[in-house]
């Protein structure tokens, strides 16, 4: 690897290309068969757009898809806020024992299998009298996404020098100023990492959602798993391919817009100078 830093270019490109190819191979495989007129992921018989047509005819499926995305975005955003604040709180704790205790508690939901989380949340919601449906699913997704956000934000906070905060306080900054002008800009890469991992957790979850959903509310994962006994039709492949393409376009588009604004408003960014200080 050290060689790569000496002469970047070919070696870097090859390694990254291999990783990308492997990461995208299953997705391309699913997308390829979504055009199969044969009706299964078995042998490709001919090209068809039939499955894509079926996606749009199936209103129930479209509603489920929109539900899934709404839950994912809401839960990722809210859990990122709770998790980032939690991570800040953890680093502020002075007692070493208390800090490890908090971190251990933090990771309980990551290590617990989904069935257990789902079943215990169900018992919890039943005890609280919360009606099962959109709200209960959202609350659960927030709950199981918080710990991964904490794990993603924590290393950034640990790198941050406390003197930075003391300096700001000495200069008369309020608590809010410290949070918004010093801490958050510094840890924002961790915050975004946490947000994306929370999205992953939410979109992937089947078991917890299954237990806490109700009132006709469903997510794509629950729908896909429950179709497995009958065999998952290529409509699901087509739908997933569409989602993936839309996400791809959004990501690249957002990035393009964002880079332009960064170039235009570079001086407004406060995160960069802070980093240099912390590195020393």
């Amino acid at each position, binding site marked *: 690897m050290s060689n790569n830093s000496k002469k*970047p270019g070919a070696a870097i490109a090859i390694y990254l290309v291999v990783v990308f190819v492997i990461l995208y191979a299953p997705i391309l495989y699913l997308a390829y068969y979504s055009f199969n007129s044969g009706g299964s992921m078995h042998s490709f018989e001919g090209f068809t757009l039939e499955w894509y047509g079926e996606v749009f005819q199936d209103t129930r499926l479209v509603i489920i898809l929109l539900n899934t995305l709404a839950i994912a975005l809401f839960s990722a955003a809210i859990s990122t806020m709770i998790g980032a*604040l*939690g991570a800040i709180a953890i680093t502020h704790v002075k007692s070493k024992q208390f800090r490890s205790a908090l971190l251990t*508690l933090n990771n*309980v939901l990551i290590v617990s299998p989904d069935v257990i989380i789902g079943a*215990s949340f169900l018992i919890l919601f039943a005890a609280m009298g919360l009606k099962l449906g959109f709200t209960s699913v959202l609350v659960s997704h927030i709950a199981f996404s918080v710990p991964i956000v904490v794990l993603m934000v924590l290393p950034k906070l640990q790198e941050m020098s406390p003197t930075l905060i003391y300096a700001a306080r000495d200069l008369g900054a309020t608590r809010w100023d410290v949070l918004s002008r010093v801490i958050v800009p510094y840890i924002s890469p961790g915050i975004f990492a946490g947000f994306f991992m929370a999205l992953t957790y939410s979109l992937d979850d*089947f078991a917890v959602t299954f237990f806490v959903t109700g009132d006709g509310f469903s997510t794509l994962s629950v729908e896909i798993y429950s179709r497995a006994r009958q065999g998952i039709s290529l409509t699901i492949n087509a739908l997933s391919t569409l989602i993936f393409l839309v996400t791809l376009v959004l990501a690249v588009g957002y990035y393009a817009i964002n880079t332009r604004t960064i170039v235009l408003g570079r001086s407004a960014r406060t995160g960069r100078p802070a980093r240099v200080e912390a590195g020393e």
Partner: protein
Amino acid sequence: MQYRTRNIYLIPYAAWIVLFVIAPIVLIAYYSMFDIDGALTLGNYRRFFTPVYMGMAVRSFWYAFLVTMFSLLVAYPTAYLLTKTKHKQLWLLLMIMPSWMNLLLKAYAFIGMFGTYGPVNALLSAVGIGTKQILFTEFSFIFVAVYIFVPFMILPIFNALDELNPSLVAAARDLGASGWHTFRRVVFPLTINGVKSGCRAVFIPALSLFMITRLIAGNRVITLGTAIEQHFLVTQDWGMGSTIAVFLIIAMGLTMVLTGSGEEGRQHVK
């Protein structure tokens, strides 16, 4: 002053811990005391220390360790090289996006790809290696597990590397350190927090992996996660399932203690 600051940040997080962590733990611990007929017992714990479950526990740890190690081996260079690219944030996002596709669908795709007549075997025979049994092997299990977890490893390492002050590396090189030496003495120690964070984000959930043990390994790999799943759903023996879960939580706590729960950053500052 410091104390009051901490309190305010702690409120939403503490509420979350009490409601969604402490309450479920209490429930699990409570259920672990009952046998299948609902009678109070410690028999579940006795049962856990029999060879069947101990063997399963050892294997779960071994596989979680392998998955974490290979994820790190793949993720570190990837994250490192990503920081060298133009538009690194975009490439990073593109690395995470496959993990948003439904896991069951991806598992089905792997079954198709790794199958006897799948593209991977077609490639192997084309280059003269010949058709191999890939599905239902430990190799395919580890491969797919690493595939699932690698974004969780890449992200924190990327963030750590990205913050690395390039002048430090340049200084080390100027002072005559070899590339490997610079990496070992300068780059790696400065990114250790990211590595630890990634290892936790992979190792802890890998302990209770269950679905791909069946889908990709055809139940050739049996982990504690599989057993919990069985007890909670099929046998409805919540007592035994909870007992295994209690053990998993204790094991996770020990792992946290052993990897030092985030003390390094502080020492590094002093």
